[in-house]
Structures are given as C-alpha cells and as structure tokens.
C-alpha cells in the first residue's frame, strides 16, 4: 500500500509538470509548429520573434494596467469587508456574508456577462475599465478571505489599549490594526495581481476591442500558432515561479514569526 501510494505520488507530479516541461522545451525547437516531435534543431529565434511582436507588448501593457486597477479597487474593498464582518453583528450578517462569498462561487463568464450588460445602459462598452470592474468583483472576495484569516487572530485588547493610551480611532487603525494586517494585505495584493494578470473567463466578455496578455495568448493559440507563444509562456512561467518562490518564502517566514508570537 505504502509503495503503491508513493508510486502514485510520483506519477501525479509527472502529470503535473510534464506538460509544462514539454511546452518549455518546444520553445527551443526550430520547427514552424510548437512541438518537440520531431526535433528540427535547437534555436533561440522564437524569443527574437516574440520580442519583435508589437501586439504582445500592447497586450502586456494592458494587462499591467488592468492588474494595477484591480489592485487599487479590490484590496480596499476586501479589507473593508473583512473589517465589516469582523466588527458587525446583525441579523442581516449571514445574508451579507453569503453575498460577499457569492462572486467566488459564480462562474467567471457570468461575472463578465453581467458586468457587460449592466454597464451597457450607461453607455460603457467593453474595454480596460470594465475589465477592471469585472475582475475586481471576484478578486475582492479573495482579498477578504485572506485578510479575514489574519484578522480573526487579532487580539482586540490591543485596540482597547491604544484607545486607553489616548489614541484616536484613526490613530489606532493606522498604528495598530494596519501594521498587524500588513503581511496579509501584501499577500492578498500579490494574489490579486496574479489573479488579474492570468484571468481569462471574465476578461473575455468585458475586454471589448482591447487585448490583455491572456486573451492575446488564447487568440494566438487558436489562429497564428507559432512557438513564439511558447517563448512567451516560458518567460511567464519563469517570472511566476520566481514570484511564487519569493512569496512562499515570505509567507513561511511570516508564519514562523507568527508562531513565535503566539508561543509567548
């Protein structure tokens, strides 16, 4: 049994990583199509082609713009709703809680569609602005969950102590609560940025004639398929992996320090 389980784990991780390795390998294949069979010789030319692709750069800058917008909208909303849920006790709370969670349980395409339809009556059609709104709708809920997780461990005597020492409520918020929440807020911001950057389902409906990087890749895959897409994929993978590792290391450090705090 134990051997069977271990074997399964190995196969599982092969299943997980093999596709990514194949895709990365195909980048260096000097073939007109993205594949590793047959191997037509090793080349770096697809990176050059990617570099020269103006559409890609435009899509990338759009993606960054959208992600920044989402960050500015979803993070404050997420923090507010976590603080709201942490503070308020009311008979309406379960209902509000369900409403806050609902974007997480709604398919992304539907969030995109409803956003598109809603803003049509104000004469706003698909584009960067609607993409930001659509994405922020569900990303805010992720931010809320992450901030909430830390907030629940907050000792509210700290707040009372700050007030008792003469701090105003704003000073308490600025000097005590926000610094405490900071690690969670930073993590949430990283997640929010990435979620926005790689979103496809919602974006597809609200992006209009603009193009984000994900939409650009999808259209490339379906139309002008060349290994340049792989080159882009490889670059993105390397950036995300670097991001992920830094994030993980930071998160572990924070958890370790938190464990130290709670031990005392």
């Amino acid at each position: 049994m134990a051997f069977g389980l271990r074997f399964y784990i190995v196969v599982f991780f092969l299943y997980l990583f093999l596709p990514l390795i194949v895709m990365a390998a195909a980048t260096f294949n000097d073939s007109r199509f993205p594949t590793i069979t047959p191997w037509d010789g090793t080349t770096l030319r697809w990176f050059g082609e990617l570099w020269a692709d103006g559409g890609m750069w435009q899509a990338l800058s759009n993606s960054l713009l959208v992600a920044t917008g989402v960050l500015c909208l979803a993070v404050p909303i997420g923090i507010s709703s976590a603080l709201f849920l942490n503070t308020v006790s009311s008979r309406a709370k379960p209902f509000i809680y369900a409403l806050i969670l609902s974007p997480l349980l709604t398919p992304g395409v539907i969030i995109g569609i409803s956003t598109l339809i809603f803003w049509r009556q104000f004469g706003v059609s698909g584009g960067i602005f609607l993409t930001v709104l659509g994405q922020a709708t569900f990303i805010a809920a992720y931010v809320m969950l992450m901030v909430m997780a830390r907030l629940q461990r907050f000792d509210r005597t700290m707040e009372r102590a700050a007030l008792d020492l003469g701090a105003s409520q704003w000073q308490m918020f600025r000097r005590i609560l926000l610094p405490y929440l900071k690690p969670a807020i930073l993590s949430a911001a990283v997640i929010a940025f990435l979620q926005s950057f790689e979103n496809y389902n919602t974006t597809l409906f609200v992006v209009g004639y603009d193009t984000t990087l994900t939409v650009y890749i999808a259209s490339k895959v379906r139309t002008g398929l060349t290994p340049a897409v792989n080159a882009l994929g490889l670059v993105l993978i390397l950036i995300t992996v670097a991001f992920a590792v830094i994030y993980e290391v930071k998160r572990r450090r924070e958890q370790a320090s938190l464990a130290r705090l709670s031990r005392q």
Partner: protein
Amino acid sequence: MFAQLKARFGGPLAMAMLTLLGMWLIVMVTLPQLQMIDYSLRPNLLPAEVGGPKDGWTLDNYVTLFNNDIHRGIFFKTLWSSILVTVLTLIVSYPLAYYLAKVATPRQAALCLLMLIVPFWINEILRTYSWFIILAFRGPLNEILLALGLIERPIRFLNGDAGVMVGMVYAYILFMVFPLYNAIESLDDNQIRAARDLGAGTLRTHRRIVIPHAKPGIATGSIMTFMLAAGSYAVPALLGSPGSRWFTQIIYNWFFEGGNWNQGAAYAFLLLVLCIGFMSLVMKFFKVGLGDIAK
C-alpha cells in the same frame, strides 16, 4: 451596522468602509446579476423598438433553449461532463491529499505543497496549451505510443471530449486537493490507528473513518471544481473540437457572433442556476454550510 463600525473605527473610516462594501455588493455584485436576469426576460429588440409594444417580459429566450435540440444537448452534455470532471478530479486528488495530510513527513508535505502550487500560479491558458502540444496529432504522446507499438496510427485526441476532460482535471485539481487536504489533516491520527487496531482494512478505514471526516472538504472541492468546469471557456475552446462544444461557447456566440444579448443572458442565467443547483445539492447531501466552504 454603521453604529458598530463607527464605535470601533470612528465616523470617517466607518463611512469609507461601508461605502466601499456597499458599492461592491450593490453596484458590482447584485445589480449586474439582476440586470442580467432582466435582460434574459426581454426580447432582443432593435433600438427603435425599445419601449414600444414589443418591449415586455417574456420567457421566449428560455423556450428557445428547450426547442433547440443542439443547444439543449450541449447544456446537458456540459452538465454530465462537469460532473464527470468533478468525480475524476476527486478520485485523482484523494490519494494525494491523504498522502500529504497523513503519510508524508512535515518536510515532504511542505515540499509537495510548494510543488503543487507552482504550476497553478501559471496561467490557465498556458497550462491548457501545454496539453494541446502533448495531445496534438503529431505530438509527443502519439509518437511515444507509436514507438512503443501500442497503436498503429496516431489518435486524434483533440477531436472528442477526452482532451477536454484531461485538460480540465489538470486545470482544476488544486481546487480539489486543498480543501481535501485541509479536511483530512484535521483528522486525529489516533482515529486511523484505532480503526486499524480494531481490525479494519485499508479500504474500510477510508470508507468509515477518513472519508466521513473529509466530507466538508469533498463538498467544497466538488462545488469549486464543478463550478469551474461548467463555467470553463478556455479549456474546451483550446482542446475541444467543433463537435465537442461547451455551453459557455454557445453563450459567447450569442453575445459576440449572434449579437443577441438577451438570448445570451438567458443562457448565462441557466448556467448560474445549474451551478447554484449543484452547490445546494452537494451542501445538502454533505450537510455543510457556507462557512465551511470559505475555509
């Protein structure tokens, strides 16, 4: 509610928080959904006809679906396939989650969790695209199978639903593994030992001890996976063929090719109802609440 917020944070902050929350829940979450439902209940009119005699509530857009054999078929195929994807993902994830929670040493578990997360930080499109390369007619999988002599001619994996299934299980596995892992991890090791000690075999231990304990995790994972699968656009678009269309693709076509938003809204609403229905059933069956789903 404002009074409680104000007592804790003071007027200006409380006001700002409530404004943000209200804006989000009303303008971004609730009203768009209501508007979508309203749209789905109105006929597709020319601008000149809006407000005219034809402008009224009707169920026509829903009737369309049930009169259109192809669309109805795709709707149900999406339903069954999503359930299949959910079950497959559960089967694939369970041993891994159990290994992480109960078998692996803390170091191994931490490493595995990191290895699990990394691929999922990568774009869904790119992950799906990787499978596109592997499953291609002249791709590595066919080449290997040919070389091994297991098949005589390359198989067109991307022609039916099989490719879509593989891609979806791959794309959403993390949403199943993590809830399962969290649930199993909270099980007291001694319960497993006690069951073994009392003579229960491996299968019985899982059936009677581990799986009942993991119920909230199974429910959460299933709800998330089903929702993602039924609402997926990228995977079927990339790995599917024209003959294996997904319901989301039909919706997309109503919006951007058919130009009939009202019809599209009706279809989108049906998709939402499908997901809510599945969620309610699972929650009822596993006796879990919303609080469990949010971890």
